[in-house]
């Protein structure tokens, strides 16, 4: 078959890249080889546009066992316990088929985590949709939510936290990011680096079908009108088989039969086999006629590029084949030795004893293209909002408008579709700043949260990147956890566009600065470019997933008010930053100016002190102040708890709108028992932390002196009504 320009383009390869392939091979590739190059060299697998920038992120620390480069990141939480976690995008498949796209996204990230030897203990998600009034939004929303639940509920891993946002920038390109967190023994972690020649390469799991052929290249291209026709067979998730695969893998991992193991994710058999031997500087030979197939007459091309779900590739120690086979057969899963490792440093593909393709591993991995794409710095808006030019509105009305908006409405209707309690260790479910999961049979817990701020990142990528790391860090602090490390999913537009590439570079600079300062390293992540349609790119949306440690489970805390007549303290300074605030967005549709700056020194000092106060047991409830400002945070503490608040007017800042709705960073609200106040104030003063006493808790009403007084049950209803009317 002649390789025409059309074939090259269809594989998402540039002509320059094709020339390079010919040079690396010293000949023309055949169709199978083109397919393999396209799978390995596309953005999704090769990180060709992002690699040089990702290298700048801090990835090390005392707590880090394994940083980026493996299937997932690994951190140390003491006593031989390790936490393994990662986040991944499944944006494009979810737009085409929301239920299956989201479900297989969850399935995929779970495999990344249990392939390293962890039992998954929590799932999170970050989902972004277009405007609620856009004609596609409702069905995408419902499909994605039930897909996430459908997979997690069936496999029996609690879905405990996430975020759901609406913004018209995602009208034609939704975001579905799924994060999985697992627990392993520190001395029982499995890696993907192949070692040794002539070792058996084993295929386990589901059979291979024609699902998602070229899924990875689809994820690396912009959508256009024809995308719906070009789409490959949609991948259908099978959580039941994944459950069997999970149990079978964990059973095999009890012993030391495994040299290397990797899930078949994007680009299936191709990327899993190439990546394993590339890490071990080896070669691999596969007999493709042995691959278990679901359909008749599948070709080597289809087998190598299929993205059928629920499959793994394992390299076994000598003589362990029969032992391992028994385990997989017990769980009714396919187990086939399909090849062996070699010292040829080639990927050799045979089909019925005939060599169908042969490519140097290096050409696929290390010699994949690497781009230092052109980028430009964002022109930063000099505009500063003039509040006087905006219509004056009543504070209570403005609050109600925010609480009843799609973005701020209560997400119970989503989280009730997720089993949050299975596995019996969820001590804080969705709804607070972070979820808390106890380590099974231990007296310690982890806290997890995912966050993003696309508007902030759009207007000022550097500050946005920095802010989102801080917000995530703050969310963990607010439940009494020590933040340890993050994973990140970088959802951006087309990197060939200099402005978009600039957004990427600057967001990363912000993330880097915050992570370094807070000793909050990045241990895993994922980049999703080309989110957009026909030159309309989404807002830059880095999503940060953080994990923190609570060393004594008893000390857990959340945001719900616990008592009558406790003191309410606001930690951190309020300047009244309204640009890019919810107040302006929800009430006036104004999206202007810069996001609030994040002072890392204050962030750290305030956070560390709040952490200390919680650890000492001096805090009844705590909440970070984020979108919507002080007044929204206070309402959240009251809604759904039994108590309300009586808040004073500000003593310093005169403008009430700025005071109550400003989104200044680094702030927390704390509820403190009367008896503990002295101790708390002493500690705050000793550390030079800025704080204000702003009021008390009371029964029934959320009240601001002389400004508003509302029954908390009414607020709760307002906060819960959006979806019911949607």
């Amino acid at each position, binding site marked *: 078959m002649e390789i025409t320009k059309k074939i090259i383009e269809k594989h998402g390869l540039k002509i320059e890249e094709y020339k390079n392939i010919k040079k690396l091979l010293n000949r023309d590739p055949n169709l199978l080889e083109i397919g393999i190059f396209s799978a390995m060299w596309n953005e999704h697998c090769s990180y060709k546009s992002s690699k040089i920038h990702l290298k700048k992120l801090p990835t090390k620390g005392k707590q880090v066992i394994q940083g980026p480069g493996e299937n997932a990141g690994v951190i140390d939480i003491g006593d031989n316990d390790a936490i393994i976690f990662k986040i991944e995008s499944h944006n494009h498949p979810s737009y085409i088929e929301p239920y299956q796209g989201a479900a297989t996204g969850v399935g995929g990230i779970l495999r990344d985590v249990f392939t390293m030897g962890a039992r998954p203990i929590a799932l999170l998600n970050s989902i972004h949709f277009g405007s609620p009034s856009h004609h596609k939004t409702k069905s995408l929303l419902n499909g994605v939510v039930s897909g996430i639940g*459908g997979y997690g509920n*069936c496999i029996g891993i609690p879905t405990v936290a996430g975020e759901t946002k609406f913004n018209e920038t995602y009208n034609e390109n939704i975001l579905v990011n799924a994060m999985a967190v697992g627990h392993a023994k520190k001395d029982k972690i499995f890696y993907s680096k192949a070692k040794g020649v002539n070792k058996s390469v084993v295929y386990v799991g589901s059979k291979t079908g024609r699902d998602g052929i070229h899924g990875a290249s689809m994820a690396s291209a912009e959508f256009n009108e024809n995308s719906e026709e070009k789409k490959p067979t949609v991948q259908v998730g099978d959580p*039941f088989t994944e*459950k069997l695969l999970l149990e079978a893998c964990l059973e095999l991992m009890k012993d030391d039969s495994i040299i290397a193991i990797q899930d078949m994710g994007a680009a299936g058999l191709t990327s899993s086999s190439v990546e394993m031997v590339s890490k071990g500087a080896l070669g691999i030979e596969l007999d493709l006629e042995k691959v278990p197939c679901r359909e008749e007459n599948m070709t080597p091309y289809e087998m190598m590029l299929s993205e059928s779900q629920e499959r793994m590739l394992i390299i076994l120690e000598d003589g362990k084949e029969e032992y391992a086979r028994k385990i997989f057969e017990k769980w009714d899963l396919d187990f086939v030795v399909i090849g062996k490792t070699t010292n040829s440093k080639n990927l050799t593909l045979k089909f019925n004893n005939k060599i169908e393709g042969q490519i140097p591993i290096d050409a696929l991995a290390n010699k994949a293209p690497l781009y230092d794409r052109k980028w430009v710095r964002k022109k930063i808006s000099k505009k500063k909002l003039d509040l006087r030019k905006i219509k004056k509105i009543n504070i209570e009305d403005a609050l109600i408008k925010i609480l009843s908006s799609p973005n701020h409405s209560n997400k119970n209707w989503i989280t*009730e579709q*997720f089993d949050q*309690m299975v596995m*019996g260790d969820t001590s804080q479910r969705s709804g607070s700043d972070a979820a808390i999961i106890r380590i099974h049979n231990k007296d310690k817990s982890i806290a997890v949260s995912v966050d993003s701020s696309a508007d902030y990142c759009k207007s000022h990528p550097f500050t946005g990147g920095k802010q989102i790391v801080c917000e995530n860090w703050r969310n963990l602090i607010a439940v009494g956890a020590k933040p340890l490390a993050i994973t990140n999913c970088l959802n951006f537009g087309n990197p060939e566009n200099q402005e978009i590439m600039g957004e990427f570079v600057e967001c990363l600079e912000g993330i880097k600065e915050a992570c370094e300062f807070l000793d909050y390293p990045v241990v895993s992540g994922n980049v999703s470019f080309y989110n957009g349609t026909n030159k309309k790119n989404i807002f830059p949306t880095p999503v940060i997933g953080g994990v923190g440690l609570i060393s004594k489970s008893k000390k857990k805390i959340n945001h719900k008010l616990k008592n009558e007549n406790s003191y309410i303290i606001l930690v951190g300074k309020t300047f009244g930053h309204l640009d890019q605030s919810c107040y302006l967005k929800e009430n006036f549709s104004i999206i202007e100016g810069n996001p609030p700056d994040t002072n890392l020194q204050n962030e750290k000092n305030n956070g560390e002190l709040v952490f200390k106060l919680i650890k000492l047991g001096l805090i009844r409830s705590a909440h970070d102040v984020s979108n919507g400002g002080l007044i929204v945070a206070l309402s959240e503490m009251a809604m759904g708890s039994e108590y309300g608040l009586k808040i004073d007017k500000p003593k310093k800042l005169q403008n009430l709108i700025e005071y109550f709705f400003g989104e200044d960073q680094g702030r927390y609200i704390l509820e403190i028992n009367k008896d503990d106040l002295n101790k708390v104030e002493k500690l705050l003063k000793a550390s030079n932390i800025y704080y204000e006493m702003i009021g008390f808790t009371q029964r029934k009403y959320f009240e601001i002196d002389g400004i508003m007084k509302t029954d908390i049950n009414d607020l709760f209803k307002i906060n819960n009504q959006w979806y019911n009317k949607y």
Partner: protein
Amino acid sequence: MKSSVIVFPGSNCDRDIAVALEKMQFKNQMIWHKETTLPKSDLIVIPGGFSYGDYLRSGAIAGKSSIIEEVIKAANSGCLVLGICNGFQILTETGLLNGTLLRNKNLKFINKDINLKVMNINSKFTAKYKANQILKINIAHNEGNYFTDRKHLDELNKENLIAFKYCDEKGIIANKSNPNGSLENIAGIFNSKKNILGMMPHPERMIDNLISNTDGVNLFSSLIN
């Protein structure tokens, strides 16, 4: 007391129930579905989850497994059998309990803490509860909408075979407090000899104040005599 928890491919509350049983001092054993004999047990538990993915009808395929025949034998000779969630669905598929569990009325999976009224304390499963006690227990299911024919419903009512009903905080049993559309708010039922209990809510999730509450404890402690 000896207990056996039956584990099917796709069961996922098996560990949770084992933790609860052990905490309540049961000597527990996990029984893989391919086993053909059951160890002597005072209590057999069929746990929640998605046995065989619940792909055909929830509980249908598990209801055909070889171990189930042993469970039926044991049940018929008086052994205590508890089916929770998917376990309840399996018990109806085997015919050990009558009726069936249809899709929730809103067609959505529901996970939340609901109020439950104890309808009958004259059973080995509920003896330690107070009459009409209101419990807060977690539910997590797609198919918990209990349905049965008129004749059986009459029998359930006449013979006092309804164990739990969904209610509100005050104990009022009404449509509003029915999460899934169950007939007469039924959340759990006994067989006529009351040695078998099937229920949709998860008592094993309510045994620890750090995680939730302890409203499920008395179900297990009732069984210990």
